[in-house]
């Protein structure tokens, strides 16, 4: 039995939209409560012909497993050029379905990373630009922050370690 589907391996081998964006309009970070892994997502926001806000560019970096990488790669290809509201509607189930394989239960958490980091990045963009934040997104943001606090509690020194490295 193969652990991962062809689609997962395809994205894992050649992940799309990997890296950083210089001067991003929004940055989001999310952590996996179980393993402590992290996901960072960068957004550049633009406008379409109708003047609606769209995701002009998106890039990600992760210290995550195969599922985390494949999921996020897939997510970025799905939402590039899409309207912000539409991007926010994507749920982890949509990603899992597209990757064509029921995930082992413990790996579900890894697929939440992508969606969470995206929500955080859009939240960050709204906040920076003083755009009113939808109630739903506010609630989700609180949940993600709480998860990060729990990770910190569970893996004592985790964020400190992360900061140390980022400072280097």
């Amino acid at each position, binding site marked *: 039995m193969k652990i991962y589907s062809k689609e997962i391996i395809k994205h894992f081998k050649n992940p799309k939209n990997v890296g950083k964006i210089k001067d991003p309009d929004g940055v989001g970070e999310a952590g996996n409560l179980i393993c402590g892994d992290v996901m960072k997502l960068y957004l550049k926001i633009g406008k379409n012909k109708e003047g609606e806000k769209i995701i002009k560019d998106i890039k990600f970096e992760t210290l995550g497993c*195969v599922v985390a990488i494949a999921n996020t790669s897939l997510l970025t290809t799905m939402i590039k050029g899409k309207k912000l509201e539409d991007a926010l509607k994507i749920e982890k189930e949509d990603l899992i379905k597209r990757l064509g394989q029921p995930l082992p239960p413990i790996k579900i958490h890894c697929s939440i990373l992508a969606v969470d980091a995206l929500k955080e990045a859009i939240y960050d963009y709204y906040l920076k630009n003083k755009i009113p934040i939808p109630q739903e997104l506010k609630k989700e943001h609180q949940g993600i922050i709480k998860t990060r606090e729990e990770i910190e509690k569970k893996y004592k020194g985790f964020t400190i370690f992360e900061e140390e490295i980022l400072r280097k």
Partner: protein
Amino acid sequence: MTENKIYLDYAATTPVDPRVTKAMLPYFSKKFGNTMSLHSFGQEAKQALEESREMVADLMGAKPNGIIFTSSATESNNLVLKGIAFANKAKGRHIIISSIEHPCIMESAKWLETQGFEITRLKVDKYGFVNPDDVKKAIKKETILVSIIHASNEIGTIQPIEEIGKICKDYNPPTTLPAEGGAPRVYFHTDATQSFGKIPIDVNKMNIDLLSASSHKMYGPKGVGCLFVREGTKIEPILHGGGHEGGLRSSTVNVPGIVGFAEACKICKMEMKKEAQRLTKLRDKLIKGILKKIEDVHLNGNPKKRLPNNANFWFSFVEGESLVIQLDLLGIAASTGSACATVKLEPSHVLLAIGLKPQEAHGSLRLTLGRWTKEKDIDYVLKVLPGIIKKLREISPLKK
């Protein structure tokens, strides 16, 4: 073994040596008797069983009647912890283990806590060594068992077993030697699953009362293990029944498996010295090469006092599973932490115990060599690994 693929996960399990398979074959359909039967079929099986017992005992300097065959090292370890605990609880309910035992010891100990036993988990240093002085300090009147893994399945560190065994032995008043009917004492057990057949073991010289081993880690079949039990040890069985294996392990005896295990022991004994030298050389080439070719990589465990076939690293800014899958795509089978890592996302307790932070433990890679590892395999790993690490680091948000 599959052509064109490089297997570097011998600590997880090994292929069965063709010589072992050959020795086993007659015992499936021709010499299939039940060792408890009185007729000639039974006698034939019984003879094979006893000859096998001698061969296994021989590899650890034990008397044949000290060997109990089990289904695995997991079973042997469960039998030791639970069997010693329940047989000796009148004397005391205190058991000492290390913090880097295999899950089957860790979990058995945890369960015993729910049954009213007290467990001390000894800390280890940055190399994974248990300090014998800590064992000495931890032993008290109520202590009935000390169980320390001989060589770590993850980082390969080899413990000072002889010294720890001596501390346990010396603690026992001379009047309570086990030969005198199993009077209360501190028993010393070692889980030698990873070391048995790879480095010399002598249960008498090393002051070992109980020792666990497993056939599938040494080119024998899966589903066979053994437990050495020193004469006079007070221990209760887990499997009650027809009274096989001296009453300690009832169940019709797995003769083909045991014959295979014994043949595997014989081969290991014959080839141990040369094979250990060969593997040590390959291991050191691998370690030196990786440390030289890749930045921000660290060796887990001690450079010298480690199993001849074990190399374990952590790479900064890299996630272990991604690393293993990348290697697999290039035909190299390796593991991160231990084989159990695929059902558990938590960082390895062994790597945390030697002081790694969770993120560091997550970026770990274990490469374990074996009988069919060639120098060109090591060269191939050294050729492709730097590129894989570079690629994964490019994705990492923690990179410099």
